[in-house]
């Protein structure tokens, strides 16, 4: 099986030759640490990437304007990347990336999507989104008209015709979607606290936002799907923390679910049957709602937030999953790694529809030796499972 065939079969709970050798991602600082600890530096990382930059790995897909960690990919002989269509589904024209306030030991800058992010100078940590271009309905109407026009103009790279030709003979899975979602994108536009109160303060605007984003993405995806056959769609939310969802399931049903249903229905009608949601935190309460909204797979199942992929599999036998291996166990060492992998991986591989990876970006407290041990052990479990299936 090639990577594309394996992905499609696995996410449809069909037999595969073996599972994936894939990861979710790494912080740049982690890869730099590993270079010091024995990871061969062949391609290296650009010097100007701060340690707090997320480097996407294979299962997260190679998204637009995002860095990867090629030396980790090559050293561990990972399977080819899932690729995302380089379609900008956010602000166009983009905002100017610039510093708004410089406080010396921290600063606020404007990202290309207009979100305002508070960050430390060397970006050793994740930024926090404190606001964005939309504060009220007037801003939203202007933003729609100026930045979210449902046209592909300017939203695809110049080499798009070549990419279309390449995609036709591809052996890797191709996905639609970037780091955007029906909660995730409004958060870029307004900042978290403003967004959370807006559901009460201006419910009409929030309904319009959900509906407009669904129609907007459908219009863009429609243009791409006329030229390219796509295997999967990605929605990014990050709307949960360790206490559960940021908003109630009832609020999700009222304000978010209609957009999901509209978008996923369109995607299914156009042959895109695998729809994945990326959401950190404790996602238990949202899983049934996502499934109702047409989602077929979720990742990365953060263990620190109380997620256990074995329990999720028991509760949702046909939900596709990626992730679920506790990064904290990998940081601890061999015994913890053995316990974590043995408790989850054989069961999950046996039940199908699952790709094992660490439950988020690998953090800087994970040594290269530990990651190597984890990866080799996991590869061994994958190999043994495949051999058993072939024998059986």
């Amino acid at each position, binding site marked *: 099986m090639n990577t594309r065939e394996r992905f499609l079969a696995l996410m449809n709970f069909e037999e595969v030759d073996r599972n994936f050798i894939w990861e979710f991602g790494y912080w740049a600082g982690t890869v730099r640490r590993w270079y010091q600890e024995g990871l061969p530096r062949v391609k290296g990382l650009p010097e100007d990437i701060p340690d707090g930059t997320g480097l996407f790995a294979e299962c997260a897909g190679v998204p637009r304007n995002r860095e990867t960690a090629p030396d980790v990919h090559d050293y561990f002989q990972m399977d080819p990347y899932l690729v995302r269509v380089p379609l900008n589904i956010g602000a166009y024209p983009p905002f100017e990336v610039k510093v708004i306030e410089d406080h010396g030991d*921290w600063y606020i800058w404007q990202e290309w999507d207009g979100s305002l992010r*508070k960050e*430390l100078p060397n970006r050793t940590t994740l930024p926090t989104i404190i606001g964005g271009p939309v504060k009220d309905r007037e801003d939203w109407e202007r933003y729609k008209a100026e930045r979210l026009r449902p046209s592909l103009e300017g939203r695809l790279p110049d080499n798009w015709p070549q990419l279309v030709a390449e995609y036709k003979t591809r052996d890797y899975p191709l996905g639609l979607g970037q780091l955007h979602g029906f909660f995730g994108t409004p958060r870029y536009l307004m900042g978290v606290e403003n967004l959370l*109160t807006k*559901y*009460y303060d201006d419910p009409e605007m929030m309904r319009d936002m959900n509906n407009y984003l669904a129609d907007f993405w459908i219009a863009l995806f429609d243009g791409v799907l006329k030229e390219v056959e796509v295997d999967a769609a990605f929605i990014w939310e990050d709307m949960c923390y*360790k206490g559960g969802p*940021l*908003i*109630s399931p009832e609020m999700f049903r009222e304000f978010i679910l209609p957009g999901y249903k509209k978008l996923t229905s369109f995607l299914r009608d156009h042959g895109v049957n695998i729809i994945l949601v990326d959401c950190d935190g404790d996602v238990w309460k949202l899983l049934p709602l996502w499934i109702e909204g047409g989602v077929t797979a979720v990742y990365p199942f953060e263990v620190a937030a109380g997620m256990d992929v074995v329990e999720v599999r028991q509760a949702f036998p046909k939900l596709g999953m990626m992730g679920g291996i506790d990064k904290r166990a990998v940081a601890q060492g061999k015994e913890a790694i053995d316990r974590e992998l043995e408790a989850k991986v054989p069961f999950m591989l046996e039940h199908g529809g699952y790709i094992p990876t660490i439950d988020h970006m690998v953090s800087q407290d994970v040594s290269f030796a530990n990651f190597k041990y984890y990866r080799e052990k996991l590869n061994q479990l994958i190999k043994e499972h495949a051999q058993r299936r072939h024998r059986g």
Partner: protein
Amino acid sequence: MPDYLARLAEGVRSGNQELVVQTVEEALNAGLAPEEILSRGLVPGIQALGQLFKDGQAYLPEILISARAMKSGTEKLRPYLASKDIPKKGTVVIGTVEGDMHDIGKNLVKMMLESNGYEVHDLGVDVTADSFARATREVNADLVAASALLTTTMTIIPDIVKALEEAGLRKKAKIMIGGAPITREFADEIGVEGYADDCASAVDEADRLMKLAA
């Protein structure tokens, strides 16, 4: 006489800012004591919401609008309360640890502590261990509340414990911690007395620590 106190509690619980401000005004005009409006009207409202949150029946939007209504009500009362000696539960220094810029959880805890009668001094984000110790001394804090979102920044918390010890403040000031990677086990391991899972539990934990100190 209308039941102003019940209306205030309901206004805060449901996050109805207009109702709260209007009812505070009416209650004052009707001759209710500002202390009573606060302690028997506004505070029970935020406590009821805190309980709903702990029971999984309220979420962060409800906490935010409820705290906003509470704040509007107390601001309306402030001129009347300023001259009176309103007892506070305790003084808290709060911040997100060094290297960490995340403040939503910290802000929610601050809102809930303030709404429940604590005087809170917010040091912001990326706060060094020494800054925690300095502020604790300056405001004579009873509690130090530290938040960390990342596995890499939670390792800073033992430095705060050490800084308070070295400043000779550890006997007086209890420490409570929270954040995505933080657990009760971690708190126990590093010798920290308090741990809270969420902003509503943080109030219970602060109350518990204040009793320990008493």
